[in-house]
């Protein structure tokens, strides 16, 4: 049984249909890179899986249970965590408080406050600073740490490197190596294709709300993905799996 299965999902922003009849399944341990141009519907798809955006049709099943109309906080309790685009930390609270908020969920697992601090050492000395005063990289680290503290079975990462200096992105990914190698199941939205390919086991490319390419990362050439990304005709090679 798949950990996550999305079936013919439609998600709308008012009149705009951002996600169109998207179906895919994700097994435990897969690292899925979700790529596509701006406005392709990647973030909306992630938000729908996390429960932040109600789909207009289709269904989402997680760990065998239908979660389509379940509220976001209940999905967190079941093990889905989203690191939202723009980090969305609680700016009036300290870094530690931001992390502790997520610990209310009380899902036992590998991640504890100390382990998160170990993963992102840059947060240690910022522990008591207001989250609003952090640098971009520190914010992203805190946001990922906050999501990890709910001990998710499925982690959704939206635009990890957006707006960050390359050095900082390098540092973040280095920190996450242990996470990525540790058998976590995650979906990663990443603009930097090389970066995404370096960590992913599978690539899924979206174009105008639809999946146009889906296959194991190893079987993907950069060219193939770029073609699918821009919707070139050659990319009609769907379903490489």
């Amino acid at each position: 049984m798949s950990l996550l299965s999305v079936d013919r999902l439609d998600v709308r922003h008012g009149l705009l249909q951002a996600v169109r009849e998207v179906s895919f399944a994700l097994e435990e341990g897969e690292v899925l890179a979700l790529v596509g141009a701006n406005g392709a519907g990647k973030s909306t798809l992630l938000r729908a899986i996390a429960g932040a955006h109600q789909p207009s049709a289709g269904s989402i099943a997680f760990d065998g249970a239908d979660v389509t109309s379940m509220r976001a906080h209940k999905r967190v309790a079941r093990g889905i965590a989203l690191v939202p685009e723009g980090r969305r930390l609680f700016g009036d609270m300290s870094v530690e408080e931001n992390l502790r908020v997520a610990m209310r969920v009380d899902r036992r697992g590998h991640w504890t406050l100390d382990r998160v601090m170990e993963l992102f050492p840059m947060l240690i000395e910022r522990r008591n600073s207001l989250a609003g005063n952090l640098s971009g990289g520190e914010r992203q680290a805190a946001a990922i740490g906050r999501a990890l503290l709910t001990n998710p079975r499925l982690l959704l990462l939206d635009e990890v490197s957006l707006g960050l200096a390359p050095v900082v992105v390098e540092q973040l990914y280095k920190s996450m190596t242990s996470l990525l190698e540790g058998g976590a199941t995650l979906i990663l939205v990443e603009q930097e294709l090389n970066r995404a390919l370096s960590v992913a086991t599978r690539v899924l490319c979206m174009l105008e709300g639809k999946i146009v390419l889906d296959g194991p990362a190893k079987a993907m050439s950069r060219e193939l993905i770029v073609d699918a990304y821009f919707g070139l005709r050659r990319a009609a090679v769907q379903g490489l799996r």
Partner: protein
Amino acid sequence: MSFFNLVAQGVLLGGYYALLACGLSLMFGVMRIINLAHGDLAILAAFLVFSISDAFGLSPFLSLVGVLPIMAAVGWALQRGVLERSLRSGMLVPLLATFGLSIALENLLFEAYGADTRSLGGMIGDLAFDSYEVTSQFSVSYLAALIFALSVALLGGLSIFLKTTSLGRAIRATAEDPDTAELVGIDARAVYAVAAAIAVATVALAGVMLGMRATFDPYSGPMQLIFAFEAVVIGGIGSLWGTLTGGIMLGLAQSIGAAINPKWFLLAGHLTFLAVLGIRLFRDWARARGGLRSALGLGG
């Protein structure tokens, strides 16, 4: 000495206003709702305590212990049943909903209790009028001191609760960004209901204190709402310690105004409120034009 007395009485009165404003400040800070039924809920609690004490011959303090959870439940139900739905339709709808609730409460109280003015003062014995005489010119009423102490304890306690407990952190997180709070596993609607329950319980406390120190009737609510609103705005919206400062400033303004001319009691309070509002607007206006000097055309 009489000026010192004036200031002391103003500060003590301010303690009552802060107590009254606490719930309004909390509800606005967490849910962005201005509860126009705030004053009427305080009066409802005063009437409830009056009825219970009257029927069973209990001290109002004992009745209050029973009424607090009832009013907390009222707050919870109000949030779940009315405000939660109206919040989805924007800022204006909750305002209208609480306005409607205010009118309904006033008229229900009028139906139930008639137009008579009541007080709990007669039920608390000497506490209603006893005071501690510091000098022949200066004395502190026990009740006013009690209310002031309650107010500081409540605002301080709430601050510590919000700062240090897990539920407090969840309330602050939800206040700042309810959507993200949901994404880290917080049931934002449940947190709102808890905040409303706490807020209305504090309103009940204030209403009963009003009943002990003065009189009330079914239509006393709106005046209390105005005092609470002024204290919240003067102190800075959304800050609990600011609410205490705001209450004290309002109390001081009223006491000093009344000392100059008894008619100025209310007027001085309202003028202070308007002045603070005016200064804030002016500061924002100046800031939008690159600071005071350039806004006034003074800088070269």
